[in-house]
């Protein structure tokens, strides 16, 4: 490489770095900035609803909920985000604990049952998803267990998959601990490990392994299967809603307004739109989630929300999650 080439490369590199910096200083700011742990294909159309009705623009940073939560904690009061839309309650709770979520107005909070929002009113669930047992073609419906606790039976040895790193499974174990007691949860975890339950890093690969016939059952959330069925009606995986032992526990995806935001009024208007009928209907139709507000009915193949037993515990409480992780480590589940 000649000296000239090196020099021009260096100049190009400097230009590459400087131009966007200067452009950023010029500022073409959107009205709202949101960090979203939900992916664009899922949330994009709902954001469009707000942008059209309010005539505002929303800039969105996409990522996974825990990473974005960690980012918001590090950013603190200097955050440029106005809203945080998370896939799980725990991520929202982390920001609430860090003291950077604004209390939402009562008229918003009232729209959603108490168990699907923060006790302090600082974040609110928009949609819910149910824990389910996904099953493949080799399993007869008569064999399906009524409780996840039955999966420790010898019959299911090596045939079940779970994702211990996944927030939804951790939420289930937290609920189990708080409702049925530490001993029940410990025995279940030990039994699952002893029964050679197969470990996956997230829900989607479990679903895919069932589809391949490498697994027969999987503990996942209902909407992963709904997604695959939407792509391919002949998809070989089905879902079963276990009636006992919190088997169909609901986890929420929710949103909070940052206390450091300078656009709180717009941000709160955004939350209102998400709870409005058009957005709730969109979520129910597209991702087959449970709409939590506006009286919108969930997709008819789902078990109605009020038939799903729900514990009187705070699933977002990270103090409880810590106990869950410790128990999971002690029993070898993590």
């Amino acid at each position, binding site marked *: 490489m000649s000296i000239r080439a090196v020099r021009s490369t260096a100049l190009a590199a400097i230009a590459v770095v400087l131009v966007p910096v200067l452009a950023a200083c010029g500022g073409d700011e959107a009205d709202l900035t949101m960090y979203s742990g939900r992916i664009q294909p899922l949330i994009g159309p709902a954001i469009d609803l707000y942008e059209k009705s309010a005539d505002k623009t929303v800039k969105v940073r996409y990522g996974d909920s825990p990473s974005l939560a960690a980012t918001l904690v590090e950013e603190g009061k200097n955050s440029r985000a106005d809203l945080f839309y998370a896939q799980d309650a725990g991520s929202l709770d982390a920001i609430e604990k860090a003291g950077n979520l604004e209390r939402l107005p009562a008229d918003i909070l009232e729209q959603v049952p108490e168990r699907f929002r923060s006790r302090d009113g600082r974040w609110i669930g928009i949609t819910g998803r149910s824990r389910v047992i996904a099953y493949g073609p080799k399993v007869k419906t008569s064999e399906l267990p009524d409780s996840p606790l039955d999966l420790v039976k010898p019959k299911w040895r090596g045939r079940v998959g779970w994702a211990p790193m996944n927030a939804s499974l951790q939420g289930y174990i937290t609920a189990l601990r708080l409702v049925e007691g530490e001993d029940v949860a410990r025995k279940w975890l030990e039994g699952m490990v002893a029964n050679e339950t197969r470990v996956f890093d997230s829900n989607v690969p479990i679903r895919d392994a069932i589809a391949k016939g*490498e697994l027969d059952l999987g503990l996942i959330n209902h909407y992963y299967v709904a997604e695959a069925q939407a792509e391919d009606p002949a998809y070989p995986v089905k879902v079963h809603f276990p009636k006992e032992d919190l088997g169909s526990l609901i986890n929420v995806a929710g949103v909070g307004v940052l206390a450091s935001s300078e656009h709180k009024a717009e941000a709160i208007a955004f939350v209102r739109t998400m709870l409005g009928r058009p957005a709730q209907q969109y979520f129910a139709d597209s991702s087959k989630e449970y709409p939590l507000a506006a009286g919108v009915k969930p997709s008819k193949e789902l078990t109605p929300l009020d038939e799903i037993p729900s514990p009187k515990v705070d699933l977002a409480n990270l103090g409880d999650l810590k106990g869950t992780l410790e128990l999971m480590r002690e029993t070898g589940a993590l």
Partner: protein
Amino acid sequence: MANVAESGLLPPPAGARLGWRAAAARRLLGARRPPPLLLALGLVVAVAAALPALYLVVVVASDGALAADAVLASRSLHLVVRSLGLAAAVTAGAIAIAVPLAWLTVRSDLPGRRAWATLATLPLVIPSYIGAYVFLTVLRPKGLLQDLLGPLGIQELPPIYGFAGAWLVLTLFTYPLVLIPLRAALRRLDPSLEEAARVMGRSPLSVFRTVVLPQLAPAIGAGSVLVALYVLSDFGAVAILQFDSFTREIYIAFQAAQRTEAAALGMVLVLVMLVLFAVHARVRGARSLHRASPGTQRPPAPVRLGRWRWPALGLCGGLVAITLVMPIGVLLYWASKDLAGGLDAATILGESTNSLLAAAAAAGAAGVAAVIVAVLAVRFPGYATRAIERVGYAGYALPGIVVALALVFFGTRVALPLYQTLAMLAFALTIHYLPLAVGPVGSALMQVPPRLEEAARGLGRTPIQVFRTITRPLVTSGVLAGAALVFLHAMKELPATLLLAPIGFDTLATDIYRQTTTGFFEAAAIPALILLLIAAPPLYLLNVKGVSSS
């Protein structure tokens, strides 16, 4: 008289016992004092590169007891051992592949050796999570291979989950980290040393073992450190292949918002890295590695393979088939399924441009920083310069999420106007991948005889002139190799890009992420293929350029 000398009134005579102050300075900065400007630049680079580690210190200091608990848990220790075992096995595998391949593509008359060299470095471009997923798709118990073998009565393949699968995939996707510096070192090797040994009656194999291999040790060592640290910090491949690693523990802590515990575990990785360096330092030692003969470097005559060329071609072909043809085949198959829905060319073009911009900026900056660090470490060895070099590795040894959060932390506190701009993203990628550039530059520099530089200084050139006219031309291939490595890694980087890029700055890697989180690996195929396409020309140029300049 001695008192006068020590009191500073008289300069100490040459060779006299040094005062404690001078002796300490000598230990710190080495026998040769670096120019102050260079040292200052080195310190700037070191501070920048130390930011991720510094962030961990800040977080851990907020609750030392909690941090200690996390580290001392017996499980953490167990996982460190497991991860180290994987790192050692992958490193050994990578060396075993890279050494014969480097020799064949540099020193033999293997047909098409430049093309093989390019093809053999390409797996580096495939993000390890994509590579792992492709291998899983093909080799899983009921995967594509089983589909093919099904008619032969094979119902299920042995599981590739766990250590074996992680070892296979990481070895096949990281060996280029050894191959690239090794090829550069082989090209710069002075053939007169080997010729002398041959003249004195040594067999070719004995010459390779006693003359060539020791000369290649720095390059192998540098590459091995990169492979080992890569394995220790990788998360994608081990997660997909269900191997319980130490990084997984760090991610669990972050996911559960256990910031202090996560940081404490990150510190353990930094400590492991320091231990690795102690080992590496023994390998590198302080040998003389530059050419013995005066005059211009000349290429050695290629070794004629004769009928050995067939097994050699088989080796290269087999490797390329597994690491490149198979993944590309699977990606093309997925892409063909996905393309039915049409291709959004404008989006892909925009993402490609963004990926190029960020990666090129990082590669350029890392190239410059690497020259500063390597010149200090190689030409002015001492505690301080060595510390500068080693601090640079911290950002590489840590998982991407830690580097990203460190810059979120410092960015929002110290450089808010730059926060979440392309400049900050490029900065993050630079400090994350700096060691990838320092290694090749350092190895190249070690093979340039300092006498050449000293002679030029003696003839009245300034240090800067010496650098421009003597050092730089001789280390250019090393700098290019280093910058190319940074470029390739920056292109596929994910956690820092997601958190630090300007909003809406979609890259090929973020597109792949978006598709894979929903399980639509088919849709991730097109950005992954374009990643490969963009990376191929620089790699080819690098290989051709390297050959013609030697």
